């Protein structure tokens, strides 16, 4: 006899476990299937443990620069094992937290590898044991994994993905980071601050290609100034692992190939969805370019089967997955006759993106180039950290906040920030976009002094030629 539920969630990352909790809140009997650790990549091998590592490198950086604040710190050093241990402890704490949440919400956790075996049927294998589950609705939230280079598979020793880079047994001395998205730049920043010699190679002609071009330029300068070597418009052609490191052949912008020796390589060239061996073929769930196809509420082409998060395509962000999870579960509840839920499809233009390098990068909405392409006449405001009292007091006077408005309607089309703590600031503009404020409401809003947030106000004012402090 199979165990019968109202909802089965396959995968317990930030998409899956949030969906399971929302289902339980709506009175569903929910089971969640996880092959490894509750919380998925995000809180075990992604967002959270990297933030813990970056916090260590940030404090280390401040300790080395204590003099700038009138302090002194001699013989500053670190113990890599302890830094990693702290990061693991943080993950462990959150993993236990998710366990607690499952228990509190009376969600059945089924450990093992789950695969759909038929309509409403899923079987979970754990060693020799197989558990059969049944539910009218199944949500696939199996996430994604790091993409490998076609010519050099990550071995975890010399050639690493984010997962290995999270728990280094020893510090790299000379590190090559392939790819300059959020993951690549965060690791580059971490290892650089910890003393490694870091090189970033990016195929596109600028780093952090999804961000606004001005942000890319700023980051290029800031990271270069910190000692990171950056090659844009360049591709790695070959990696040869030897006894003491890796020899990389890099084809530069000029078309010439050069070789270099590195102690380690981190591959951060993107991710691919986990769509294999989970039974999609048995029921005919359609996917395209590696991602499951869904509608605005997470429905696949097969009734009763839903997909959320990384497995259903870009942007590959935890908060996007969580949000899709809630939307899908509410749509399921509505199909079941619940009239009190109002699932809303997410506007992908309102999903913020954050990179926790030093300096931080955060953005929402369109870049300036994209807004121009879309045919908007623009009003663009830019306000530098150097014009903000709090930033100067913090000793963090580098960075800027850029806002892009439609000149005709006053719609906030996009906001782009680089500098200290901007990952916490961006939310203000996300709320503004969600509420569809225009420049007027933002100008009329009172911002507390002294805060970094004041720059958000000034940037809006700057777009209309009214900035006060610059």
């Amino acid at each position: 006899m199979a165990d019968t539920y109202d909802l089965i969630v396959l995968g317990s990352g930030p998409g899956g476990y949030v969906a399971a909790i929302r289902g339980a809140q709506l009175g569903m009997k929910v089971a969640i299937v996880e092959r490894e650790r509750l919380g998925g990549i995000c809180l075990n091998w992604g967002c959270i443990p990297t933030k813990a590592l970056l916090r260590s490198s940030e404090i280390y950086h401040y300790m080395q620069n204590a003099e700038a604040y009138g302090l002194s710190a001699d013989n500053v050093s670190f113990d890599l094992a302890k830094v990693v241990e702290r990061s693991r402890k943080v993950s462990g704490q959150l993993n236990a937290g998710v366990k607690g949440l499952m228990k509190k919400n009376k969600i059945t956790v089924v450990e093992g590898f789950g695969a759909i075996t038929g309509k409403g049927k899923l079987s979970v294998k754990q060693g020799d044991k197989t558990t059969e589950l049944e539910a009218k609705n199944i949500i696939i939230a199996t996430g994604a994994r790091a993409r490998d280079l076609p010519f050099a598979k990550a071995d975890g020793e010399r050639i690493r993905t984010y997962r290995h880079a999270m728990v280094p047994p020893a510090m790299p001395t000379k590190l090559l980071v392939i790819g300059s998205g959020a993951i690549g730049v965060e690791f580059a920043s971490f290892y650089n601050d910890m003393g490694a010699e870091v090189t970033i190679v990016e195929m596109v002609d600028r780093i952090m290609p999804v961000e606004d071009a001005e942000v890319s330029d700023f980051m290029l300068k800031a990271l270069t100034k910190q000692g990171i070597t950056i090659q844009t418009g360049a591709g790695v052609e070959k990696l040869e692992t030897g006894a003491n490191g890796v020899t990389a052949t890099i084809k530069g912008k000029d078309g010439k190939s050069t070789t270099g020796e590195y102690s380690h390589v981190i591959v951060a060239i993107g991710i691919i969805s986990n769509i294999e061996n989970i039974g999609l073929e048995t029921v005919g769930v359609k996917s395209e370019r590696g991602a499951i196809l869904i509608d605005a509420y997470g429905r696949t082409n097969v009734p009763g089967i839903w997909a959320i998060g990384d497995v259903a395509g870009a942007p590959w962000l935890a908060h996007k997955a969580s949000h899709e999870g809630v939307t899908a579960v509410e749509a399921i509840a509505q199909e079941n006759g619940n009239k009190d839920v109002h699932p809303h499809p997410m506007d992908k233009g309102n999903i913020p993106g954050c990179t926790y390098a030093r300096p931080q990068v955060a953005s929402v909405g369109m870049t300036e180039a994209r807004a121009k392409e879309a045919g908007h006449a623009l009003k663009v405001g830019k306000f530098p950290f150097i014009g903000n009292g709090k930033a100067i007091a913090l000793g963090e006077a580098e960075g800027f906040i850029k806002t892009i408005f439609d000149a005709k309607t006053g719609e906030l089309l996009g906001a782009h920030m680089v500098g200290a703590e901007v990952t916490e600031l961006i939310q203000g503009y996300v709320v503004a976009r969600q509420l569809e404020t225009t420049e007027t409401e933002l100008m009329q809003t009172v911002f507390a002094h002294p805060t970094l947030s004041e720059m958000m106000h000034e940037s809006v004012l700057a777009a209309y030629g009214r900035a006060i402090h610059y």
Partner: protein
Amino acid sequence: MPIELKMPALSPTMEEGTLAKWLVKEGDVVRSGDLLAEIETDKATMEFEAVDEGTIGEILVAEGSEGVKVGTAIATIIGEDEDAAAPAKAAAPAESKAAPAPQQADAPKAETPTQEAPKQEAPKQEALAKADTAPAPSEGDRIKASPLARRLAQQQGVDLASLSGSGPNGRVVKADLADAKPGAKAPEPAPAKPADAAPVAKTPASDAKAAPASPPPTATSDIPHEASKLSNMRKVIARRLTESKQQVPHIYLTVDIRLDALLKLRGELNTALEARGVKLSVNDMLIKALALSLLEVPSCNVQFAGDQLLTFSRADISVAVSIPGGLITPVVADAGNKGLAGIATEIKDLAARAKAGKLQPHEYQGGTASLSNMGMFGIKQFEAVINPPQAMIMAIGAGEQRPYVIDGKLDVATVMSATGSFDHRAIDGADGAQLMAAFKRLVENPLGLVA
């Protein structure tokens, strides 16, 4: 400091009006109670009285200006003890910003339109905000809309009230305006946005947006025609009747009613009342009959109000009166407790003033149910559109001699058909039927109307 006179909200639903005529000119001294201007609203022309005393400083809105939004400054008054040479242009943003404090004291609680006499308001910092955004003044029926949606609506010339909002709690958002663009093509059948690679574009039922109000067809007809601008009244009629038919599920119940007894009684009463100069019409008696029926069947004397049902303990009957250019519904308040002669006198007065456009708002607003009589036009039977927020309207057809079965024998009787339209959200069919039965009984046994 000069006081700004603002376009008053002369009725709870008034959003804008026409400044028909100025009764004062710049430099005139006015006392409280003096008539300042005539303002034409959606339903009537009303006089705007002075509350403060002083000298008219400057007239800011010329006579004959249409569509003046409530709250717009239309003139300034200079206080008696002030120098008349004080700057007249009170609306300049810099000034109201520079010296906001002294005005706060006498600024009445602004913005909320009431049914009371129009208020004048001291200028507020609003002037500054207006310079930036010209926000729609807040109105009695606040339309929930995002700031961006408001601005887009203004730029596109779309009436926010005509949109159904898809945001939380019916908030009008940008996407709703995309659908409402004048001249926009019919929306694609699949609601999926281009950004969503959607293999199946099913939308959960409750999220399916109500079909956007169809944009008014543009008058591009080749047939020779004359285009005339809609009057305020015509706009309101159009909006409210559309709302009613779109939002109120109507149920119609028809009965045939013998009138012989009522006509006989009317004749006798009119003979008796002749000395008093009162002449009862059939309609006067039907008003009373409807009011008594509503009191007898209170489940039909109701109003559907969102998550509440209001049951009234008094029957105020709105009577549809045709006037040049439209229709107005003066109200006979508490018609159930009024004598027939009183109703007749009241209706005569109301109808006369309605035709002259001189009704006060309280005389045509409110009402718990309506009565519409098209018998005089020879209409046999019709179904009327409910007048929201009311929950029922009685449509009266012509009284005519018809073959009628009386006590099992075919005979001739004077019969009229009456059809009640009921808001089915608030009134069940059986309750409606009870009301129709009570109405029929009262009309066929009319002594109940004079008892």
